[in-house]
């Protein structure tokens, strides 16, 4: 499906700082992101209160996920064997191209014209829509938020609230253009239009595509949680279901699943469980009138294995709840598009350099953080996101320190290692403080000065106090 609103192509600035600057001047975006993230954070807090001791459950979840990582090959192996025994087909994709090729192959073989999709970040990661459209297949996003941004020709701006940056008037324009008659701005009317419009797509679709929230090895099951029912429709109505699964999105047992599910919706949307917790084990069986004849799961590596066995491996424990985005002071100001990566916020700032080290975001995004640690504080599986961001910065700084910069730092450490050197430097700082206000207000020095206050210095340095 092509965007229905002809807007001039907007060029995306290359650097985070420029994209952030643009976002900071977009009042509607900032108000919308603040409103949504505030609500999600409050909801999370209330919902976690529904557990006797959420800290205990989070520790357990971390333990479960880390155990999975330590035995991932065996667990995936067992899951695949069980799913195949139930009639499912498992495909293994080393990278995005291979995943796309597998899906195109199935679409070709089935002579598929129309594909319906539920929300799937893994499909965003492999840029599936554009690949399918380039081969003449029509793809319709069916999650309400994803449908809106597909009409707008944009990408999701939040893990769980993809159209967080659009308001009812934006939707009114998009839906009116799509319908050919006026729709909105009443939200109920807009949702009603989406139901009718997308229902015919579900019924006509040749293939349904979904993500996977959490697979279960012991029975070969895939779990998919969602609130609208579009995920259930995508995986039930079309004759073929293709699920795309990041290779780490798995647990061993249903007991483990219980723990993960008790945290996922609570952390994501503040619900005890999502409206639909779909647990799928194979295609339709004899005696069932509907359900897909074929179930395919594409297991995606796409750079993940490079993180395995490294100090960043724990990032693969992520259950994609989005809580770290909601509390991040950077995300809350600039929204998801400023990251210009499939994954934004703190999780994106860690994941992007690992999955896509050569991309500009791979270098810049670890800098897009105040290192306040709020993300790690809320993460249901306790990923030390702020530590990882710091390590990534450290790694980058070491890799590209210029000779001058290294010399400067060596001189500084040499100077401060001696008492007279330290005294000399503080005396110099005290004298030159007034100079800062006389720095030029333009150019890069001006930009540096604009947001900085030079802190007042004591009259004597600490070491010379009695």
């Amino acid at each position, binding site marked *: 499906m092509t965007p229905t609103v002809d807007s001039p192509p907007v060029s995306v600035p290359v650097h985070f700082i420029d994209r952030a600057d643009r976002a900071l001047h977009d009042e509607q975006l900032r108000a919308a992101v603040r409103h949504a993230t505030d609500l999600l954070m409050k909801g999370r807090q209330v919902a976690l209160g529904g557990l006797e001791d959420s800290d205990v459950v989070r520790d357990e979840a971390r333990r479960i996920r880390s155990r999975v990582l330590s*035995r991932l090959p065996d667990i995936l192996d067992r899951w695949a064997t069980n799913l195949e025994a139930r009639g499912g087909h498992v495909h293994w994709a080393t990278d995005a191209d291979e995943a796309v090729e597998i899906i195109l192959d199935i679409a070709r073989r089935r002579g598929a014209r129309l594909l319906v999709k539920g929300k799937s970040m893994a499909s965003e990661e492999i840029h599936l829509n554009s690949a399918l459209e380039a081969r003449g297949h029509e793809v319709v996003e069916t999650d*309400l938020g994803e449908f809106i941004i597909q009409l707008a020709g944009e990408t999701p701006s939040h893990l769980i*609230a993809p159209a967080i940056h659009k308001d009812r008037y934006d939707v009114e324009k998009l839906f009116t253009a799509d319908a050919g008659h006026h729709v909105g701005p009443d939200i109920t009317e807009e949702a009603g239009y989406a139901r009718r419009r997308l229902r015919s797509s579900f*019924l006509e679709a040749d293939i349904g595509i979904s993500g996977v929230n959490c697979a279960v090895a012991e029975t070969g099951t895939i779990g998919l949680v969602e609130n609208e029912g579009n995920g259930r429709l995508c995986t*039930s*109505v079309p004759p073929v279901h293709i699920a795309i699964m990041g290779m780490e999105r798995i647990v061993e047992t249903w007991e483990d699943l219980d*723990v993960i599910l*008790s945290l996922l919706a609570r952390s994501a949307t503040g619900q005890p469980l999502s409206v639909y917790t779909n647990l799928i084990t194979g295609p339709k069986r004899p005696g069932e009138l*509907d359900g897909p004849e074929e179930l395919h799961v594409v297991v995606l590596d796409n750079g993940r294995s490079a993180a395995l066995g490294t100090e960043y491996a724990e990032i693969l424990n992520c259950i994609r709840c989005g809580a770290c985005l909601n509390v991040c002071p950077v995300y809350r100001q600039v929204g998801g598009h400023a990251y210009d990566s499939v994954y934004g916020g703190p999780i994106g700032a860690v994941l992007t350099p690992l999955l896509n080290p050569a991309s500009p975001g791979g270098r810049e995004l670890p800098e897009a953080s105040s290192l306040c640690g709020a993300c790690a504080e809320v993460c249901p599986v306790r990923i030390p996101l702020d530590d990882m961001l710091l390590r990534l910065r450290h790694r980058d700084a070491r890799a590209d320190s210029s000779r001058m910069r290294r010399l400067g730092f060596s001189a500084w450490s040499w100077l401060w290692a001696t008492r007279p050197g330290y005294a000399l430097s503080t005396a110099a700082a005290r004298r030159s403080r007034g100079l800062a206000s006389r720095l030029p207000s333009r150019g890069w020095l001006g930009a540096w000065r604009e947001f900085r206050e030079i802190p007042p210095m004591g009259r004597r340095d600490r070491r010379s106090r009695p």
Partner: protein
Amino acid sequence: MTTREQFLGRLRSATGERAPADTTGEPVPPVRYAVDRSGLTGFTESWTALGGTVETVTDLEAAAAAVEAWTAGKGPLMVVNHPDLAGVPRDIDWPDCDLDVAPDAGCGVVRADAAVAQTGSVVVSSTTNHGRSVSLLPLNCVFVFRRDEIVDDPGDILRADFGPDGPPSQLVLIGGPSRSGDIEMSLTTGVHGPGVVHAVVVTG
């Protein structure tokens, strides 16, 4: 194309020779909740908070009458062919119907395997209901189950033994009407799945 062996082989070399974590003897304790919720009272509290309605009846005959009354005027009625729903009059008898007529139904009636008091969920199996559409396509849906099928926590369902046949092709926990907050975080119901949901609990 990458084979399973190649894919897993790469992971094995990436995880290195680290000893696999001991996974035996470490049972995962059940999730504990702040407030105990159980039985019909617990379920009713949670389910209605999510926007569903509940009705109790003493036997299957009364259940059929309750379903008939609730579904009146809600469009063609599609009912699963299940012995406990035999008394419910119907326009579409699932699965003894043409799949093409399913989208016309205005109301679906299914036999839920269980319900969960803690989360206000009904548990719907594709085996019991010969497929999935009846609780999915219509705008209105009725779930019929017995009071003694209400369990306390989701773990009572998820940790249950599925037996030699394993779980059904689709097991779904449904918590209230379909909902979306995708436009301005404002709650709208029925955006894809049923927007009006009713539980009929047989107490006898």
